[in-house]
């Protein structure tokens, strides 16, 4: 207990908790769309594309330095963000009657981005640990600047989704009916995936790929197992995500465990408990 009190007295842990809670809230909310659309792999694929963006930025900076002796550093975050947004839009805009199903495109993005990122890291002049840290983030390294950035992200996503929630739900549920009624289903799909892409790109830098993927899938799955209504599912996912993040960080601090995997373990335990409870109840 004293260790838990100690945790809340440390400034850096307050940033860690605040940052992780914001990431948990946004990703758990967006995760409901991802799980309902049966596009769980989207989170993993966009995470890898974002990582590739970071690796490419550092690689190109290294090339510029070695060729011209310049110290012009290419900013990793904007490049990762741009690449993720392009990938998200491509995934959203793909027509169903294309040569390959959307799931295949997502799988190709995941495999290609993962392989390329590792190759780029291997030939990068930057220290591998530095590159990996930038690519996959670290919950415990969240500082006040990142908390502010995540809060702005959360606010932006909240505003866009509060205004266009009806459109996002409709085109996710029945894009054909939406088109029949004159709603531009492709446009709203692209806007929805844009918010998902931007969120994943920024959240990964702060919390890491594993934690972000966890928040995109497990709280939504838990909420949908409980799911009484669509609004209940969104609200429950946020509550489960935020509670899992706080519990995970606290347990990892007290028991001296790695924070990311502990958050995942807590989320999994919550999901399994809910599934077991549901099974018993029926």
């Amino acid at each position: 207990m004293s260790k838990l009190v100690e945790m809340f007295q440390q400034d850096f842990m307050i940033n860690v908790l605040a940052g992780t809670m914001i990431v948990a809230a946004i990703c758990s909310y967006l995760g409901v769309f991802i799980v309902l659309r049966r596009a769980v792999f989207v989170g993993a694929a966009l995470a890898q594309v974002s990582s590739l963006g970071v690796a490419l930025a550092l690689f190109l900076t290294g090339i510029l330095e070695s060729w011209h002796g310049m110290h012009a550093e290419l900013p990793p975050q904007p490049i990762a963000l741009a690449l993720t947004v392009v990938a998200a839009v491509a995934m959203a805009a793909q027509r169903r009657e294309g040569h390959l199903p959307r799931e295949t495109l997502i799988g190709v993005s995941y495999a290609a981005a993962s392989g390329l990122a590792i190759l780029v890291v291997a030939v990068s002049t930057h220290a591998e640990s530095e590159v990996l840290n930038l690519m996959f983030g670290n919950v415990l390294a969240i500082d006040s600047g990142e908390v502010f950035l995540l809060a702005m992200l959360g606010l932006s996503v909240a505003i866009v989704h509060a205004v266009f929630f009806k459109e996002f739900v409709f085109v996710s549920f029945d894009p054909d009916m939406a088109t029949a009624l004159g709603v531009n289903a492709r446009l709203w799909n692209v806007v929805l995936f844009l918010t998902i892409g931007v969120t994943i790109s920024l959240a990964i830098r702060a919390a890491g790929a594993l934690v972000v993927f966890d928040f995109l899938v497990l709280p939504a799955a838990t909420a949908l197992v409980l799911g009484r209504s669509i609004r209940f599912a969104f609200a429950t996912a946020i509550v489960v995500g935020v509670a899992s993040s706080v519990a995970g960080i606290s347990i990892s601090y007290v028991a001296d465990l790695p924070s990311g995997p502990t958050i995942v373990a807590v989320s999994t335990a919550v999901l399994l408990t809910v599934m077991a409870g549901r099974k018993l109840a029926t």
Partner: protein
Amino acid sequence: MNTLIEFRDVTLGYRRHVVLSGLSFAIDEGEFFGIVGANGSGKTTILRAMLGIISPTAGRIEFAGRQERMRFGYVPQKAHIDELFPFTAREIVLMGRYGLLPPGRRPTDEDRRIAEQQLEHVGIGALAGKRFRDMSGGQKQRTLFARALAAEAKVLLMDEPTEGMDLEGQHAILELIGRLRAESGVSVVYVTHRLNELADSAERLLLLHDGQVQVGPTEELLTPQVLYQMYGVHAAVEMVAGKRVIVL
């Protein structure tokens, strides 16, 4: 009678694969128009072109004389609805109003009233709060009908609305369509693979079989000669209990 939808020498397909070509027909206001063909014959492709999900690779589709698409009430196959979404019947029917609302505008009390009214209209008003996934096949189909009606569109497009239903269910759905048409004068485009289902109810038919297309009034198409020409089978068309049926 005004023409609502007109296909003018339309070719439909996906990328380089042509599904149907040289397609010309018109659907009039208030008409019950049937599209009949086996799986893979192109009937759903025609429906998707009407909805604007795919564009013709040649020719053009006009809606009330213009090329801007019109709003449709669309009744998809039940299997098309993803039951992972925990929607109630009320929430699904309310979606029929979304095409009438500008982006970002929430449904009003009036929209909610119309959604409830349409649920009553199709005979499941008491099930408004029931989850779609927990409903029977007939109740689900009625919910999708109510959603299409809530759109207040001039045309209802129905994709195999009686698929998976028993005879009683099929009869109930066709009765419902007849009642809706009598009350509101709405046009109906009904897609099915069972010719007998529309033998007595559709006013005109579009028959698709092995690349052949025949369009015309039901009584002109449902003759032993045309059926033999289209399907290569000897069939009789008889009146049973006052209804037209095809007998093989």
